[in-house]
């Protein structure tokens, strides 16, 4: 079963005008509408949030809107420009999220993310990430993921939530209550159905099919079947001229893993030859599998650096060949370089004397495409231990910096410091005993305190916060990193409770 994400941009025309940011674009708090014209009638076809708050609605005559709101910013509708901008956004999503992306009407994008969500940390993370990133550039979006295009489309448009995840095979439950406007039917059909008293999808699907078809044509039944996933609705992925694509059609559908692997190898050779003539290397390659039952499957290979090496690409794509379900057979394979970057040839220095440094990017690519998190850890200038490091990409520039080594650091740091009970005699000395996880230990040696101040220049709440860290060793030689929240004298600096933050080797 596919997993389809539908994105809906309720204010696309106004958002686009603001985003384009040409001179004279009104500030976000100023109401703004887009006016479309049909014949001599001018009416509002999009209104931003500020305008909606003032009572302006889509479909309202332009003169009425102007009368209601003084000083209203009005723009002429530009459907071609809107569509072009949407196309650009879809191409970006093609690189970023999934190999199969298409436009969904004039105000939406649809993606098939089956097998692609794990690279974004799961479906919830993926959807919230999409919505937040779009909001960051000033585009209001609502997203939904479901088993079918129809369901995702309906839920994205008809629920108030910013993003919705419909669990696998719970589509029917999620859509039964929705009104029939979500069915992507012609307005006349919707009106006709309403006359019959049908309001929700549940009511419609309970109707006998034959009279419905007789009265409204086959479209109603088809849309219902698409909504529930009874018939497939393949998404035809968008392409742009700069995307390099090679295809192979099979007169006789193929299915065996070895056959697929063989043809993938040939397609990769073809693609690499094509890329070579353009001087490009591929960063993201998609293998799209068209099956005879008119469904599409895709395998994406991401690369940390542009690559034009057919062996490596073949390896990455065939690594996950078991994920392909050939069904009744595959009739077409396409290999698409959705993201390519210039790749210059460099002469390799002869390594007669010096040992050549081995490039580990092929390994990183293989592991990354299996969905593992790959990173390096690099220092951050912070005294607070849990903030003293950050993750960077595995192939990012080598920073060459290191942590200061004047104090020992534990080899295991607990994500959440664990509270301990201690007995100590002086505020400045390490504790004498500590009880951790129910076991009391006598402490024979200790070092400290190492005082860590809160980062008051970043966080107001930490203006007075202090932690005193001690290295302590119990009588068995086990060494721990403990701290007291607070300086031991002034209660404004912390709770004065003790915590265990890590264990030394």
């Amino acid at each position, binding site marked *: 079963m596919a997993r389809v994400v539908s994105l809906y941009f309720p204010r696309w025309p106004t958002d686009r005008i603001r985003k384009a940011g040409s001179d004279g674009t009104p500030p976000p708090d100023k109401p703004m509408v887009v006016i479309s014209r049909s014949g001599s009638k001018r009416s509002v076809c999009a209104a931003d949030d500020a305008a909606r708050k003032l009572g302006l609605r889509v479909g309202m005559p332009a003169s009425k809107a102007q009368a209601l709101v003084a000083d209203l910013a009005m723009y002429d509708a530009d459907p071609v420009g809107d569509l072009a901008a949407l196309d650009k956004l879809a191409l970006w999503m093609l690189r970023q999220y999934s190999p199969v992306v298409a436009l969904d009407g004039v105000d939406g994008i649809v993606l098939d993310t089956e097998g692609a969500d794990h690279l974004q940390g799961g479906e919830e993370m993926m959807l919230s990430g999409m919505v937040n990133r779009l909001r960051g550039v000033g585009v209001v979006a609502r997203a939904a993921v479901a088993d079918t295009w129809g369901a995702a489309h309906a839920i994205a448009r008809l629920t108030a939530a910013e993003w919705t995840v419909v669990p696998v095979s719970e589509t029917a439950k999620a859509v039964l209550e929705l009104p029939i406007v979500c069915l992507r039917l012609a307005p006349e059909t919707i009106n006709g159905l309403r006359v019959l008293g049908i309001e929700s999808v549940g009511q419609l699907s309970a109707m006998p099919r034959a009279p419905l078809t007789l009265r409204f044509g086959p479209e109603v039944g088809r849309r219902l079947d698409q909504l529930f996933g009874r018939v497939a609705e393949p998404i035809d992925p968008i392409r742009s001229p700069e995307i390099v694509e090679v295809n192979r059609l099979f007169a006789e559908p193929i299915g065996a893993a070895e056959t697929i692997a063989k043809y993938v190898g040939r397609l990769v050779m073809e693609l690499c030859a094509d890329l070579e003539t353009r001087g490009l290397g591929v960063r993201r390659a998609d293998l799209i599998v068209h099956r005879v039952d008119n469904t599409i499957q895709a395998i994406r290979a991401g690369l940390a650096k542009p690559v034009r090496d057919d062996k490596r690409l073949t390896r990455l794509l065939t690594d996950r060949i078991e994920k392909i379900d050939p069904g009744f057979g595959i009739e077409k394979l396409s290999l698409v370089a959705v993201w390519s970057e210039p790749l210059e040839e460099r002469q390799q220095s002869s390594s007669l004397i010096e*040992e050549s*440094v*081995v490039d*580990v990017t*092929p*390994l*990183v690519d*293989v*592991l990354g495409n*299996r969905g*593992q*998190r*790959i*990173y*390096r*850890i*690099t*220092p951050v200038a912070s005294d607070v*231990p849990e903030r*003293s*490091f950050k993750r960077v990409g*595995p192939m990012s520039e*080598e*920073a*060459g910096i*290191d*942590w200061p*080594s004047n104090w*020992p*650091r*534990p*080899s*295991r*740091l*607990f*994500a959440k410091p664990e509270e301990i009970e201690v007995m100590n005699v002086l505020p400045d000395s390490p504790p004498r005993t500590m009880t951790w996880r129910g076991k009391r230990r006598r402490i*024979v*040696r*200790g*070092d400290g305190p190492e005082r860590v101040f809160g980062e008051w220049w970043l966080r107001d709440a930490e203006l007075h916060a202090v932690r005193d860290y001690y*290295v*302590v*060793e119990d*009588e*068995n*030689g*086990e*060494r721990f990193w403990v701290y007291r929240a607070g300086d031991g004298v002034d209660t404004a600096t912390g709770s004065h409770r003790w915590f265990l933050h*890590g*264990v*030394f*080797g």
Partner: protein
Amino acid sequence: MRTHVRPSGIIDELREQISKLEGGAARKAESLPFGIPEIDGKLPGGGLAFGALHEFAGGGSGTVDGAAAALMVAGIAARTKGKILWCLSRPDLFAPAISQAGLHPDRVIYVEADKEEDVLASFEEGLAFGGLGAVVGEIVRLPMVMSRRLQLAAEKSGTMGLALRRWRRQTEANDYGQPTASVTRWRISQLPSEDLPVAGVGRPRWLAELMRSRAGECAEFCVGACDGKGRLSLFPPMAYGQDQEGRVRWHTAS
């Protein structure tokens, strides 16, 4: 009478034949010495063999965290050349400590997986890749079949595999007695640190138990923890009765 051929000659010849049969690895057995003759002398090849799997675990109550074993592994990796792949599923390793054991943060690439099988798969992939200094895998279980695959991958590429065993509960550590294909198996327990003339914690000390060594003997060493370059140092057996449990029988330092 041409009867006596020196038996060692025959054995050498046979060894050569066997090594030829064993996957045609005409590779010279290379190893990474600790730089301490007492330890290197116990290891066949004079150090930890490259192209082999080595197992490390914490001893005593350190089995769950494996904190000392992790540092030991970091110190060994620090003394190799090239990038280090560190496969794990519980990201509680504190990178500054690893750097204090001599392993610069730029050299370590972490691979974090959700499942144990994925950690093992990354471990094997890293070993088979070749060109890495060492591959570290933090794993709970190491079945015989998997350890053999890892060992084969290491043999083929000549990369050192360092399996860092840690468990979620102390009782699970019984698993460490099960046979695996690893060439050496170590247990690193913490000992009271070096005595200082003033109050404070001195250089940490470990009891490094070589529990298994293929074609070698078991041994125990009392060592000072890795310094800033990943080197260990040998301590004389503690004569001053600091060890109150008396569970350790000390070897003399010769």
